[in-house]
Every structure is written in structure tokens, then in C-alpha cells.
């Protein structure tokens, strides 16, 4: 934390950039702004621990203001932590070394909707639901619907390399982001113009998609739009085991069918998530499917997918469980008395692997995590032609906070270790933040050196979100 004189001097300079109403040094604002959606942060809040706070919070409205703020931060060598919706689940926006929290919520303009090219240009602070509702009015969808849609914003989507619940069909944020504006730590504003694709060297957008505020501040993006589907159909199939469910999914994609939603729940997750609402045999694994598009194509895709599932031993549950999931897809994000009582903590390790490794990764992680007094349930979602993600969800409740946080850490350590050992990748869509920061080098292996070199060139002083993405960790 900075001393009082430095803080007030810095705040004065920041106020001259954004106006005094848009800078705060007040501890109460810092405490409230520290609040993110990392389950460990939430558990600590409940038990009465204070999260790390920034020295000053600044709310810019333009990229130019962001550039000027970064100039002040560089000169004073003060950490800068960009924060969007504050809905990240990995602690990526926690100001662990104090400094400036650069809050983008006032950059909330939808700048232009190009219906001809089906593109929307937005500032980074637009909240997901605001954008989706606006384009819906014109008959479009962004196709990006993470569970945090009401709380997260466009800059956060891109900074964490996120994926929505319909990413199988519409793509992930890296597929959806065609143009990008970024302010570099040296205050240069760079723009990568929106193009369907190009062959002018490496795709520099991808350098910043997933950079988690460590290489610059994302201030604007141009995203793809899709016509709202003429029809969305839901279908649910129960398999006797994970293996047959996964084989059916693999065949569905192999046969050229691309559902918008593909979610296979393991026996534990099926029991917890669905058995209160549907008659399901113990041990069965429910597959939820949705199909978006033209009526004729949806009908054909659904028919073929159902046939494949039946050939793999599935029972047909009609639209029920899948439609119910869609209508209640945000419910699991709410706190409940059960999951927040005492020193309870749960989290999700959202890993990804190709089909040949998915089952091994799943069983290895499950075993490793269950060793630590954790209840583990999982679903395979965000599935693609070559593999997909597993949501390894765990829950533990301990006698005191210290034990709970230690157990939590051990579950993470051993879960991620098992994932990497079996050939998976430790995050599909939540990002790295703090929760995975220490595993980054193991995950990236020899390529981590490239990331470090890029960081050293773009942010030589190391002011940008230190401690995240395995970069700038201070002893």
C-alpha cells in the first residue's frame, strides 16, 4: 500500500484526468470494489476476512483517459489492476499489491451496430446482458452467454478468454472478437481493425485475448453478431455411464452436427442437478442438447443426434431436463443456505482436453480431489469436434476457516496436477487470475518463456496486474 502523501498526490493527478467525482481514495469504496466472484473471495467475505484493496479507484470514460492514467501509473511505478464487472471467478481483479484499480464500468457505450456486416462495436465496460438485450431488439444475438452474463462485461469476457454456454455453435470469445482497442502500459492506444480474417502476420488480437490485464487495458471491441435463431429445440438423453455419453457426443460432432448446447452430467451431477425434478435412475448420466437455427436444419440435426444417442444406449427424456436447465441456467450461481453455511467452500476447475484424454483426465482429477474430503460432481460441457471441457465442481465444509482454505488449496493443487499429468489444460474459460497463477508455468511449459518475454517488452516496469497469469509475482 502507498503512503498517504503519495496516495493523495496520485489521486490529484488522476482527478485532473477523469474529474474528482471519478476518483476515490475512500476505504469503503475500495472494500466494496474488491468484491469479485472468486469462490474463495466470497467464502472469505462470509467468514469476515477483508479482501486485498486498492489504494485508489479510478473510473475513466475514454481510451484517452485510460492512456493518461497509465502514464501516471508508469511514472509513479504503481500497480494497475483493470476491473470490469468484477465477476471473475479466479481472483483476477483483486489488487493484491494495492495501487490503482482501473474500473471500466463507466465505459458503457454501445458505439455502433453494423447490420450489413453483422458487427457491434462496444466499449469494454458494457455489461453482457445490456449488450445482448440491445442486439436482441434488432433481431441479433452475440452468441456469448456465460452464466455471469448479468454481471460480467465485454472487457472481462475478452481479458479472461471466456466461453459462453452455447460456445459449441457460436464460438468462444476469441472467435467472436474481430476488432480490438487496447491501451498499452506505455500509454499508446493500439487498434486492431475488425476483419473476418487476415494473413498479415500473427493475429495480434490473440495476444490480448486472455491477457487478464497483464499486457494492457482492453477499452473497446468489435464483436460478431448472429441472427437470432428461427428455432431453438431442446432434447435430453440419459446414458448408463459417462463413457457412452462421451462417445455419443464425439459421434454427433464427427457426423457434422453442431448443437448449440452439449452438456453431459456425470452420475453425481445428474443426481444433484436433476433428480429433484425428473425420475432418473441412479448412476445415469444426463446429456442436455439444444439445437439453434432454421427449422428444417434443426429438425434434421435433432433427429440424427437422437439416433446416435439411442445407438449408444441412451433413454430419451424429451425436452424436459434440457429446457429446464436453460430456463434455470443462472440459478446455480446464486448463494444458498447450504453452500454458504459455516466454513463451506466450493469451486469449479474448468479444464479442457481432447477426446482421447477426456475420460482419463476426468477420473484422475476426480480421484485426486476426492482424497481431500471433497464432494466432487462434474459435467462435460462446451464440447467441440476435437474434445471439450469438464466442469470439475467440488464442495467441502470444514470446522474452521484456516482448515477450509488449506483443504481448498490442496484440492486445487492436486486437481490441477492430475489434469496436467493426464494431458489436459487447466482452464477452458474462467482464466487464470490468482487461483491458477502458480500453475501457469507448468501448464505452458517451454512456451511460458514467450509469455514472459512479451510481458517484459510491453510492460517493462511490471505495473500491469502483477501476480496474475503467473507474471509479476512478488516475493
Amino acid at each position, binding site marked *: 500500500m502507498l503512503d498517504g502523501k503519495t496516495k493523495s498526490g496520485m489521486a490529484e493527478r488522476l482527478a485532473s484526468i477523469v474529474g474528482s467525482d471519478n476518483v476515490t481514495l475512500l476505504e*469503503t469504496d475500495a472494500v466494496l470494489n474488491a*468484491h469479485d466472484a472468486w469462490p474463495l473471495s466470497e467464502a472469505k467475505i*462470509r467468514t*469476515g476476512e477483508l479482501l486485498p484493496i486498492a489504494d485508489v479507484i479510478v*473510473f475513466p470514460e475514454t481510451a484517452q483517459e485510460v492512456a493518461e492514467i497509465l502514464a501516471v501509473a508508469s511514472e509513479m511505478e504503481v500497480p494497475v489492476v483493470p476491473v470490469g464487472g468484477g465477476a471473475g471467478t479466479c481472483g483476477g481483479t483483486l489488487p493484491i499489491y494495492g495501487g490503482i484499480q482501473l474500473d471500466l464500468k463507466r465505459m458503457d457505450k454501445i458505439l455502433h451496430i453494423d447490420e450489413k456486416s453483422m458487427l457491434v462495436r462496444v466499449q469494454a465496460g458494457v455489461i453482457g446482458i445490456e449488450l445482448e438485450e440491445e442486439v436482441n431488439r434488432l433481431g441479433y444475438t452475440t452468441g456469448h452467454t456465460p452464466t455471469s452474463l*448479468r454481471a460480467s462485461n465485454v472487457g472481462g469476457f475478452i481479458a479472461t478468454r471466456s466461453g459462453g454456454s452455447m460456445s459449441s455453435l457460436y464460438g468462444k470469445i476469441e472467435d467472436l472478437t474481430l476488432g480490438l482497442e487496447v491501451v498499452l502500459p506505455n500509454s499508446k492506444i493500439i487498434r486492431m481493425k475488425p476483419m473476418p480474417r487476415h494473413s498479415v502476420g500473427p493475429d495480434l488480437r490473440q495476444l490480448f485475448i486472455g491477457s487478464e490485464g497483464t499486457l494492457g487495458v482492453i477499452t473497446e471491441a468489435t464483436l460478431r453478431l448472429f441472427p437470432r435463431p428461427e428455432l431453438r429445440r431442446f432434447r435430453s438423453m440419459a446414458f448408463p455411464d459417462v463413457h457412452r455419453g462421451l462417445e455419443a457426443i464425439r459421434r454427433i460432432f464427427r457426423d457434422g452436427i453442431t448443437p448449440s448446447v452439449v452438456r453431459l452430467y456425470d452420475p453425481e451431477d445428474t443426481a444433484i442437478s436433476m433428480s429433484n425434478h425428473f425420475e432418473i435412475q441412479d448412476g445415469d448420466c444426463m446429456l442436455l442438447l439444444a439445437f439453434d437455427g432454421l427449422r428444417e436444419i434443426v429438425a434434421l440435426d435433432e433427429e440424427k443426434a437422437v439416433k446416435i444417442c439411442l445407438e449408444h444406449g441412451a433413454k430419451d427424456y424429451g425436452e424436459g431436463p434440457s429446457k429446464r436447465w436453460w430456463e434455470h441456467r443462472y440459478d446455480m450461481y446464486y448463494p444458498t443456505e447450504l453452500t454458504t453455511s459455516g466454513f463451506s467452500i466450493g469451486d469449479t476447475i474448468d479444464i479442457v482436453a481432447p477426446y482421447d484424454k477426456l475420460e482419463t483426465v476426468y477420473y484422475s482429477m476426480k480421484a485426486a480431489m476426492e482424497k481431500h474430503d471433497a464432494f466432487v460432481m462434474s459435467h462435460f460441457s462446451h464440447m467441440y469436434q476435437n474434445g471439450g471441457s469438464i466442469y470439475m465442481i467440488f464442495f467441502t465444509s470444514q470446522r474452521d476457516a484456516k482448515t477450509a482454505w488449506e483443504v481448498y488449496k490442496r484440492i486445487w493443487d492436486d486437481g490441477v496436477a492430475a489434469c496436467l499429468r493426464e494431458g489436459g489444460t487447466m482452464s477452458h474459460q474462467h482464466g487464470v487470475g490468482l487461483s491458477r497463477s502458480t500453475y501457469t508455468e507448468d501448464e505452458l511449459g517451454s512456451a511460458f518463456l514467450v509469455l514472459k518475454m512479451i510481458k517484459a517488452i510491453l510492460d517493462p516496469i511490471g505495473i500491469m496486474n502483477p501476480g496474475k497469469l503467473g507474471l509479476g509475482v512478488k516475493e
Partner: protein
Amino acid sequence: MTDSEKTAQQVRMCAACPKMCRHVCPTFFAWRSDSPTPHGRALLLHHDNLGLRQLDERAVEVIYQCLECSHCLTWCLPEIDIATIVEDARRILVSQDRFPKGLETIRSSVLSNHNPFCEPHEKRVAKIRFKKTKSADVIYFTGCTAAYREHGIANASIEALKEFGFNVSIPDDEWCCGSPLLRTGFTSEALEQARHNVEILNEMSGETILTTCPGCYRVLTQDYPVNDLRIEKPVMHLSQFLAKHIDKVPKGNLAGGVTFHDPCHLGRHCGVYEEPRLVIERITGESVKEMERSRDNAMCCGNGAGFRTLFSSQAKKIGGERVRQAALTGSRYLITACPFCRNLLASEAGETLEVLDLPELVMTVLRKR
């Protein structure tokens, strides 16, 4: 588990929620900061409950940066009622003399003038056109806003009721219902007003007490009984009364399209959604063109719970957004059923949208016949 333990548990849950309601919070809209949000208020109260951080001056401000509109409750699966929790916190702050001093004028004006606008009490009905009557069908409790700031609503209400064959009387000595004080934590001062109102209303003859202000309606039907103050006649909001006597309301027509803004106190707080729509559709001959956010998902107008007094520019910003949402329906008329809402929405509406309270709409149509 005691009530206070249950509330503490709810605050604990809300404080650590991943912000599932923030996108509809009007004060988040106004400031675009995580401080004036439901989970922000809960976090401050959670820390205070644990003795971790006491409410400092900024925290008190955040507690008063709440409109108590309860929109967050619509989106809260665990049904945590932050508006009520905030109001409880305000009561404690008032008892500690830690309320924002910007509210002192309202408090002292209600105590001395029986209205929050520093207007003389003896002029309460000066702009209201009515004849005293001994035998009234209905007693019209005008409320301060219709009496002093929106007397068009009061006059239209009386005219409409007369038109439909009802004798209307107005209390000789009506005082502020107490809503502005109750919502900001001044309970004892509010109850002083309440006791007087109960006394005079119980002495008056008339079958039903009508209000046009949902703030008054909520207070008379909910807060008074909670505080053991019983009004011995049924109390109805004008929209409910007209809906009950819908056959007396002529079928009219009004071109241009009509949308309806649900007042928070009438809708979310009292569950009255259909009655104003029934009256609007009867008198205009048109279906209400609903805003995307309506009924229990309606955005607050920005005026309530002391907010406009303390944070007028943010109140206007919220009101402006609600007007924008109304304009998206393509309607010529934005109707509400609350003098508070009408006042703020009208101040933010441009030339293309005419803002009317329900009785004003009724009389507008009747006069055109």
C-alpha cells in the same frame, strides 16, 4: 433462529453473491460503481454485524444511496429483501444521529408543516377544487405530493370520481402519511403523523379511503397496522377503486399508444399490477404497450426513499433512463399511478412523450369526448 440472526444470515449471503441483481439496480445504473449496489450495502452491514468494520461516513452515504425500490428482490433467488434491511439500518443510524444532514429539512418540515416540502400546512388544499360534503362515499387522502406539487392529479381524481357518481370528501386536517420519514429511518416522527391521520380518518364518515399516492397507500395499509395503528375503513389505491367499479368508467379511445410505468410502492411493495392496466385499457380502448421491464421487473423512476433530495442528478439520470425505456414502446403517453413518479418522469420527458397520472389520463379522455 431469531429475526436478527436470520437477517444477519441473509446479509452474509447477499454480501458474497456474484452480483446477480446488480444489472437492474437503478443506483448501480446511476453511478456505475460497485458501491451503491445491493451487495455493496449488504457487505457493509455484514462487516458491521461482525464488528470487522463499522459504518463510516461513506458507508452511511451508501446506505442512503438506495431507492428501496426492491427491484433486486425480483431477481434474488434466495429472496433477500435488501430494501427492508437497508431501512432497518437507517433506523439505527437515525437513532445514532448519523443520518445525512440533507434529510433534516424533510424531517423538520414534516414535523412542523406536516409535509416534506416546507409548504404551509394551512395551504394544503388551497389548489384542490372540491366542495365539502357531509355524506361521502369515499374519503380522498390526497398525500403531500398531489396536494402541493401535483394538484392536477388531485383535481382530476376528484373530478373523475364525481363523474362516476361518487361523493368525495377530503380530510380537513390531513398530515403527511409519514412515508418519507419511515423510508429514511425517522420512525418516531412518522408515527406522530400516523397517529393523527388514523384519528381523523376514523372520525370521518365514508365507506372507503382512497389514495392516489402509492407511498401513502403502502403506509396506510402496511406500516400503520404493523405499528398497531388501525384505520377502520378499507383503504384502496384509486386504480383499485376504479377497477372495482370498471362498469362506471366509460369506454373511451385515445390515439397514439399508451405505456404504463409501475410505481415500486404500488407494484412490488403492494402487488397491484393489473388494476391500473384495466382502467387504462378501458378508458383508452387500447392495450398497454408494455415496456421491456414492467410489473415486478419495472425499473424505478428514481424518486423515493429520500433519494431525490440527497442525490438529485442521479435521480434525474434514472428518471431519464426510464423515459427512454418508455419511448422504446413508441407510445405517445407514459401513464403512471403515482404523483412521485409522475413528477420525476415528466421532468425528464421531452416533447414526444406525455406523462400523465392515471386520473389525469381518465379526465383527458373524458374531456375529449
